């Protein structure tokens, strides 16, 4: 029976030779990731109520990122509860203040192709870039996993997004995702699997592939997947298995694009689905540029911003929160960080920061921001009156230089 990558991954976790879309299966979980917000502070009281222990502490990873840096009594209590719980529960894989969970997880070698993983965060779809079946769940369902080591799943159909050719200079995975969300909507993924294929995807570096799978959350897929290949192996610095769909496995849909046709995209307030090509918004004044989040501040994202900002100054407030400490150190070593700072960027901690509006810094009512983050729902980053436009690191950097929404291709001479 011809199987998609999704079916193969689910079948392995369910202990089956094959599975059929639509059937309900129980999967064994290879890895469960939690952060400080949805993790220990929520699961600990529930585990105590059940008088239950973690089924296998070696399969649990805890990463603090949402309430860092701590700024008041509540945030201190939340982060402290993560630090205390990993000790009590015997969780060895604890990454404290090292960056955003979706970036730190593969960076520290926790993900491998073929794995079945859950994360206590909707952007856990990011792990699918490593040909691992990884998706987001809530805190109560995480307790179910922590107690049983298992989770139910409706075997997904697969929607293929195939990008031929090569993305044009000044465009990126972010533009591809905003384009898909505008075309198919926030529920275009139908809570099935969205698999990204084609020459343009094969030639993308790992962190750009992560952006595709990350924003599969906004496209409404249960997760995004990309077959493993030499690029995956190089990133993980270890021998991996190749996991890929059979070429003629049945699909729910197969959409084909020429990557070169994707122009820089911008999503207007208050939805990622309000996306149109950058030209439609050209000239709109913005007063804050934000380069942050698992979606938009990985090393690759910082490099894109630096290509635009080299030798230039931002006319507006430019905030940069590198997605992980290691990515920030790498950006520093290769001169990327200096370019950003010379352009006037203010460096923020390696954490979720303003993206989810959990921290001390929030957008106020008068802010018109352009941001590399994934979501611009009303009130997400602070005041419900704040306006947030979403775009790629190229477009955010170019708009910072112009003080208005700007096509980055004009600045890439």
């Amino acid at each position, binding site marked *: 029976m011809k199987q998609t990558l999704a079916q193969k991954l689910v079948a392995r976790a369910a202990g089956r030779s094959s599975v059929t879309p639509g059937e*309900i299966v129980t999967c064994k979980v290879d890895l469960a990731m939690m952060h400080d*917000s*949805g993790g220990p502070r*929520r699961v600990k009281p*529930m585990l105590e*109520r*059940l*008088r*239950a222990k973690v089924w296998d502490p070696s399969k649990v990873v805890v990463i603090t990122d949402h*309430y860092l840096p701590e700024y*008041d009594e*509540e*945030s201190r209590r*939340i982060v402290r509860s993560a630090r205390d719980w990993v000790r009590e529960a015997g969780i060895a894989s604890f990454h404290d203040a090292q960056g955003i969970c979706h970036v730190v997880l593969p960076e520290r070698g926790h993900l491998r192709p073929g794995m079945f993983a859950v994360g*206590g*965060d*909707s952007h*856990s779809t990011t792990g699918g870039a490593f040909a691992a079946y990884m998706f*987001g*769940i*809530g*805190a*109560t*369902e995480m*307790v*179910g996993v922590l*107690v*049983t080591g298992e989770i*139910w799943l409706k075997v997904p159909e697969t929607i293929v997004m195939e990008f031929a050719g090569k993305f044009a200079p000044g465009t990126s995975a972010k533009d591809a995702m905003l384009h898909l969300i505008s075309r198919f*909507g*926030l*529920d275009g993924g139908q*809570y099935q699997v969205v698999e990204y294929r084609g020459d343009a995807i094969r030639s993308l570096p790992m962190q750009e592939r992560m952006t595709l799978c990350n924003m599969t*959350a906004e496209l*409404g897929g*249960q997760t995004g997947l990309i077959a493993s290949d030499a690029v995956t192996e190089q990133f993980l610095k270890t021998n991996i298995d190749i996991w890929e769909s059979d070429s003629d496995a049945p699909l729910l849909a197969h959409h084909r694009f020429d990557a070169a046709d994707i122009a820089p995209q911008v999503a207007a307030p208050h*939805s990622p*689905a309000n996306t149109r090509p950058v030209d439609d918004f050209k000239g709109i004044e913005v007063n804050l540029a934000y380069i942050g989040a698992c979606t938009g501040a990985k090393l690759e994202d910082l490099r894109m911003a630096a290509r635009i900002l080299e030798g230039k100054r931002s006319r507006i407030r430019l905030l940069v929160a590198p997605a992980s400490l290691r990515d920030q150190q790498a950006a520093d070593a290769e001169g990327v960080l200096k370019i950003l700072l010379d352009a006037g960027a203010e460096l923020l901690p390696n954490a979720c920061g303003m993206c*989810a*509006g*959990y921290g001390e810094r*929030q957008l106020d009512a008068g802010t018109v921001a352009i941001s590399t983050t994934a*979501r611009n*729902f*009303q*009130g*997400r*980053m*602070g005041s*419900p009156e704040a306006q947030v436009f979403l775009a790629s690191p190229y477009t955010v950097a170019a708009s910072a230089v112009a003080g208005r929404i700007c096509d980055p291709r004009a600045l890439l001479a």
Partner: protein
Amino acid sequence: MRAWVLGDNVDTDVLAPGRYMKLPVEAIAVHCLESLRPDFPREVRSGDFVVAGRNFGTGSSREQAPAALKHLGVAAVIAESFAGLFYRNALNLGLPALVCAAAREIRDGERLAIDFGDATISTPRGSLRFEPIPPHLLAMVRDGGLLPHLEKRLKGNA
């Protein structure tokens, strides 16, 4: 009880805004949906229904989104479709999430009653069908959510 009718793509940031996420659910609930319907958190009554179009609960995995609705006494969310993560979270918390293709026919303020046995919603203007809770989740929903369901299962094993 009455229906509170909303549109498509109601997101988790309006259900449980990030700036209140550090607080307990009762403090989040007083801001639930306030940017869409300022009267909702003040005037919703126990037994009321939230009715919506497509993709209700899109966005975050934060369970406080369905938990806030449950805390306010919402008896069920009725929608044309749900974001998958919200759907799992709602049922795990024992908040019925009912898929009803004709949800748009329900008008704001109408009085509704739900018959789970028949899978129907009665409105002043007739009766609408909803999709029954999937069989593999029925036992959990009957137990009141995943936690009581696990509690029962663990006791059974002991």
